[in-house]
């Protein structure tokens, strides 16, 4: 990946004159233009963006257009395994990917707080550029605003993604049917615990890193291996529990999962026990859940395991007629419990 070359700026008033973001960087004047010319263009470099017109013009292949948007306000901006930049790219790419779409292009909108060190913005932009390249999706248009100090948390990013759902692909959260299998692409809880560990200054024996990654490569492979996939979702905020509850509600079915079958890495499990959190409710940024006809599940899992992001793919449960709208976990002890959504954020317990 190419590093930004801070030494070779050609502008007579280089960005270096302002080591921090000032209000003028969002004013649409010279400072704004410098930000575009010396930071965004070199990092995101693609022909569509380079035209700098008011709107990016794209060629769309045949199929239905998919469009999604997401805002990123993560604190802190940098965390083990990633930063707000790659998160903003991967999050939106993944929303397209699990809808069965091939991502075409992204837009990015920055809201920067006066005083944000320019070097930090540089790192964030660089991370976005690398994530976009890794996903193979260009960032084709963007906007920057600056708010006064104290009115933002350093940097907020909104990304919008456009994609195309090819002919024959039809996924939806309302399509799960009794008898279907529920497939998970890997271990859960990593992102949420990674964020918590830096946000709260908690130290664990091993560094837990975020799983942020773009899933479009994996979903393309999955749809090719198993065109009958009924639904895919990426379990971000609210974790696996929120995703399964949504599938159960929207499809009017029950979902039963085996607690033992859901992979949770030891450090994540330990951290969750310590804090009184349920890993099923902790956020992920590089995982997906798929609902498929049971007969297709073993083949799909085998195919997923050939992809680096699906190496630990497994079947975690089944869709059932019983308990429509509920997600039920079979515990290792043979008991069962209903998993619901938390009202707000999960709260660490007293003792």
């Amino acid at each position: 990946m190419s590093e930004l070359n801070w030494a070779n700026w050609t502008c007579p008033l280089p960005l270096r004159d302002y080591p921090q973001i000032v209000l003028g960087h969002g004013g649409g004047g010279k400072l704004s233009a410098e930000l575009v010319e010396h930071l965004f263009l070199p990092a995101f470099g693609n022909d569509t963006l380079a035209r700098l017109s008011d709107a990016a013009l794209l060629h769309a292949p045949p199929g239905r257009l998919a469009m999604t948007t997401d805002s990123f306000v993560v604190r802190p901006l940098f965390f083990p395994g990633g930063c707000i930049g790659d998160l903003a790219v991967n999050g939106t790419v993944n929303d397209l990917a699990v809808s069965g779409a091939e991502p075409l292009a992204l837009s990015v909108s920055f809201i920067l707080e006066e005083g944000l060190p320019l070097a930090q913005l540089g790192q964030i932009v660089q991370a976005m550029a690398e994530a976009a390249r890794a996903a193979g999706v260009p960032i084709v248009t963007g906007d920057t605003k600056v708010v006064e100090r104290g009115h933002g948390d350093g940097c907020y990013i909104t990304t919008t993604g456009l994609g195309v759902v090819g002919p024959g692909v039809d996924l939806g959260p309302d399509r799960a049917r009794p008898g279907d299998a529920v497939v998970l692409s890997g271990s859960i809880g990593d992102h949420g615990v990674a964020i918590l560990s830096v946000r709260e200054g908690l130290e664990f024996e091993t560094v837990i890193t975020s799983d942020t990654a773009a899933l479009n490569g994996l979903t393309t492979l999955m749809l090719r291996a198993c065109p009958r996939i009924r639904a895919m979702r990426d379990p971000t905020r609210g974790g696996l529990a929120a995703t399964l509850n949504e599938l159960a509600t929207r499809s009017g079915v029950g979902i039963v999962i085996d607690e033992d079958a859901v992979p949770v890495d030891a450090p994540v499990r330990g951290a969750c026990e310590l804090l009184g959190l349920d890993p099923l409710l902790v956020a992920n940024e590089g995982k997906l859940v798929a609902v498929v006809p049971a007969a297709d599940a073993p083949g799909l899992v085998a195919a997923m395991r050939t992809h680096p992001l699906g190496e630990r793919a497994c079947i975690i449960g089944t869709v059932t007629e019983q308990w429509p709208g509920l997600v039920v976990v079979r515990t290792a002890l043979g008991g069962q419990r209903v998993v619901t959504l938390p009202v707000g954020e999960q709260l660490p317990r007293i003792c």
Partner: protein
Amino acid sequence: MKYLTEFRDGKLASKLAEQIRRSVTRRWTIMEVCGGQTHSLIRHGIDQILAESVELIHGPGCPVCVTPIELIDRALAIAALPEVTLCSFGDMLRVPGSATDLFAVKSRGADVRVVYSPLDALRLAREQPARQVVFFGVGFETTAPANAMAIVQAKRLGLRNFSMLVSHVLVPPAIEAIAASPTNRVQAFLAAGHVCTVMGIEQYLPLAQRYRLPIVIAGFEPLDLLEAIRRAVVQLEAGRAEVENAYARVVEPRGNRTAQAMLAEVFEPTDRTWRGIGMIPQSGWRLRPAYRDFDAEYRFAVGAIRSTESPLCKSGEVLQGLLKPHQCPAFGQQCTPRTPLGATMVSSEGACAAYFNYGRLVQLGTPPATASTAATAATASAATNPRSSEVAKVTGVGR
């Protein structure tokens, strides 16, 4: 992984459950005192697995649930003061006071922070000398040593901007209040292991003798709980009433003497009102006069606090084991985790929240087809609880 997987072994658990089933000649009523145990029992479905042999009653051992509403209201008033940073454990934030909760006060501009230890609050006080940092010090004997430590350190450092709103509650007086009540149905207690880690087990000897009740010190993992229940059942069947330590890997009979000395230095016993239950004599700790400078109740004159409980909330009866959460008319209706009327619906350790989140299968009364043991358990539970199908109907679960 050490201490996580070993004590959750499904095969061993089945063996223990089978032993319990075989050793009972009747169905026994056992109360687990601690909310952490309630959480674990329901999370792992142990109450269902044992439903034929044992009725588990969920006790008052959830600090969030029993903290008096007057104190919550006082915390809310203190948090609203502009100079104050109020630090609290996470699950206190959603506990309803008379009119609002800490989350709502925070959204209106109050500086309310979630911390994991009172020592974090102490550090905050050192870092922000211009702010008054108040720690909301609730909990049983388990959380008390760290709170005492924070107070001792604050005094040593001469911190003038650190104080604590203290509402400590104690387990033995609560067990005594339940055992002595004329309506008591509890035949044996599982005592809270972590409380005993600090205080030892001696305090329970006179209780077991006086009230002829077995008291078994229990841990929190599924195997710990099953083993403790097994020992309680063996005692009950044999007509014995003794104190037994089923959590010996953690609990020393004499407890932690260093911690006890520090607790005695900082706190003194006091009468304490338990939310929903009422005043229990000498059932709490407050700061000794020597540490009054660090007592937030004295430092902040927030005026007369007038507290009112929801008239619908029956959490007191739930906490005393007189009512199952779903037998409360407001359960799942006016009272849900989203709109809690009482603290038992808020805390993840609260019996009402535990029932709402995890126990809905039992209320549905539909035997699950997938696991045969749980199926029997759920049916048995529905049979012994004639209201269960009715409750399922009124709560509209399974929409």
